[in-house]
């Protein structure tokens, strides 16, 4: 029997290439792992019994359209919805023989940092089932950590790949904006949404990125990669300039155990030959979160206008079209989408537009400029991915602002369209700590090289201790 807990996608590929196992046997092994462990963890909203292809299984976040396979974005308003076409990323995975094993749980419409906003109930963290896996791609991150899929796709608007990867002890990439097609992805905030890979190793993450990245005629915001993806091999960091932004490493609310693990990883960068120096992002961290919580809800209020009960999804049908719209949306959306739709509608409404949305767009320029200046001096910027380790279920559900702060360190680079890689760098109180590596636009290869070298030196064991 194949033990999926420790198996990487590279490991699966080796089994296939040597003929030690067939694609069907591997698919069956992951299905068995899901049957065994997903009753407790609830990583999946839908599990596929069959899936075409001769290659490696993959789990897809439920925000990604899969033809004929339910796609709900974690919302009641899309219950039973079956897309009639595939997202570009789904097609690209299928073209390489990857087999969709299931659709993973998520915060409704990718709005949240704990997966507790799913209309179908929370996912639990494989390291401690009383804690959240992070979010919004919590199902994808937890599935990879628990050996229910060798790798997965998530989506990241304000940290939704990086933060759950950190909280589940796996590797997650938020790619440079525009490198991965958004065609067929349920839209949240279109100037920020990016699909990204989640895997057990940096090399797997890089490979999966190479599968999905590149210009797509169906998404005019996409571009071709300036260089092909390089699967990282270097084990040192000689010649790499690593910057430590003060504000991202000393922000209020960073747990001491998180700082300790991150500082040890920074020290390791030195030992591996990197030049390490301090830098500043004076306004990006203080104003990043407020900026995000104006721009993302504004875009969401527009994107979510399509859920009106007319063409697909839930319809609550009293008399009259206006009542149909209002009742459908009130019954179909959970609290977080409603809050963000209202916040965005307010920020865009007459009399408030300039003070809120217009001002936030200018803050976004300031953030871009500050990161650009720091990235002139350094190749990579490092910080914790999340201020805390995985928190208990229910700890932040009553206080939206406390939940939002979970992404305070992940959001600023996203506003500038920068890529970010989260790798596990140790444990605090027995729970994984994520290290965030930020680079200039299109510098994924640099992040992969740095992440891989650190990963080899850190020797973090990604198998949750309670499952080992």
């Amino acid at each position: 029997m194949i033990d999926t807990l420790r198996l990487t996608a590279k490991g699966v590929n080796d089994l296939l290439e040597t003929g030690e196992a067939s694609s069907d046997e591997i698919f069956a092994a992951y299905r068995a792992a899901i049957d065994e462990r997903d009753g407790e963890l609830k990583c999946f909203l839908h599990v596929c019994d069959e899936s075409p292809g001769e290659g490696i299984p993959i789990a897809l976040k439920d925000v990604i359209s899969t033809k004929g396979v339910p796609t709900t974005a974690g919302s009641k308003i899309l219950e039973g919805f079956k897309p009639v076409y595939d997202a570009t990323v789904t097609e690209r995975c299928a073209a390489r023989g990857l087999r969709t094993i299931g659709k993973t749980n998520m915060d409704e419409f990718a709005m949240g940092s704990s997966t507790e906003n799913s209309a179908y109930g929370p996912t639990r963290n494989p390291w401690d089932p009383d804690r959240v896996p992070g979010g919004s791609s919590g199902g994808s991150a937890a599935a990879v950590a628990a050996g229910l899929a060798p790798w997965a796709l998530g989506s990241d608007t304000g940290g939704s790949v990086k933060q759950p990867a950190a909280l589940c002890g796996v590797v997650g990439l938020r790619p440079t904006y525009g490198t991965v097609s958004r065609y067929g992805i349920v839209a949240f905030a279109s100037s920020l949404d990016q699909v990204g890979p989640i895997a057990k190793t940096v090399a797997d993450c890089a490979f999966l990125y190479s599968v999905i990245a590149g210009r797509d005629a169906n998404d005019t915001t996409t571009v071709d990669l300036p260089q092909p993806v390089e699967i990282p091999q270097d084990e040192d960091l000689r010649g790499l300039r690593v910057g430590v932004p003060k504000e991202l490493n000393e922000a209020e609310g960073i747990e001491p155990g998180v700082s300790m693990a991150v500082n040890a990883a920074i020290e390791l960068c030195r030992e591996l030959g990197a030049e390490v120096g301090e830098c500043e992002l004076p306004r990006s961290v203080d104003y990043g979160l407020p900026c995000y919580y104006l721009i993302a809800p504004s875009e969401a209020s527009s994107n979510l206008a399509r859920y009106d009960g007319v063409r697909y999804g839930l319809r609550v049908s009293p008399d009259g079209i206006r009542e149909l719209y209002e009742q459908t949306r009130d019954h179909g959306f959970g609290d977080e989408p409603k809050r963000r739709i209202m916040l965005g509608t307010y920020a865009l409404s007459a009399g408030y537009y300039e003070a809120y949305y217009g001002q936030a767009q200018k803050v976004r320029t300031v953030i871009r400029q500050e990161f650009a200046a720091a990235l002139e001096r350094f190749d990579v910027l490092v910080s914790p991915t999340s201020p805390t380790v995985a928190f208990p279920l229910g700890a932040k559900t009553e206080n939206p602002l406390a939940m939002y702060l979970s992404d305070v360190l992940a959001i600023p680079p996203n506003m500038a369209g920068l890529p970010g890689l989260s790798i596990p760098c140790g444990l605090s109180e027995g729970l994984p700590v994520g290290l965030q590596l930020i680079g200039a636009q299109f510098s994924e290869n640099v992040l992969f090289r740095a992440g891989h070298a650190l990963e080899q030196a850190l020797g973090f064991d990604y198998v949750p201790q309670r499952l080992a």
Partner: protein
Amino acid sequence: MAITRDEVLHVARLARLALTEEEISKFQDQLSAILEAVGKVSELDLSGVEPTAHPLELSNVWASDDPHPPLPVEEVLANAPDREDGYFRVPAA
């Protein structure tokens, strides 16, 4: 900054959300707290700073004008809550 009950109702109406009484009062409190936090952006003097609408500097992205087959009507209507004669069906105003 605090948001009034009337503003909550106004925004809900713009967003086509029929809120319950309980939701109105809950969202009034929560939106007030969130607006106070995000209002921090107004502290900065950003006169003369250009806004960023999009992280990449792309402009005039053209697509070739080739016709492609559209989705068949049957697929377009496949998820419709209600339909009639190849159209989406909704109640009269």
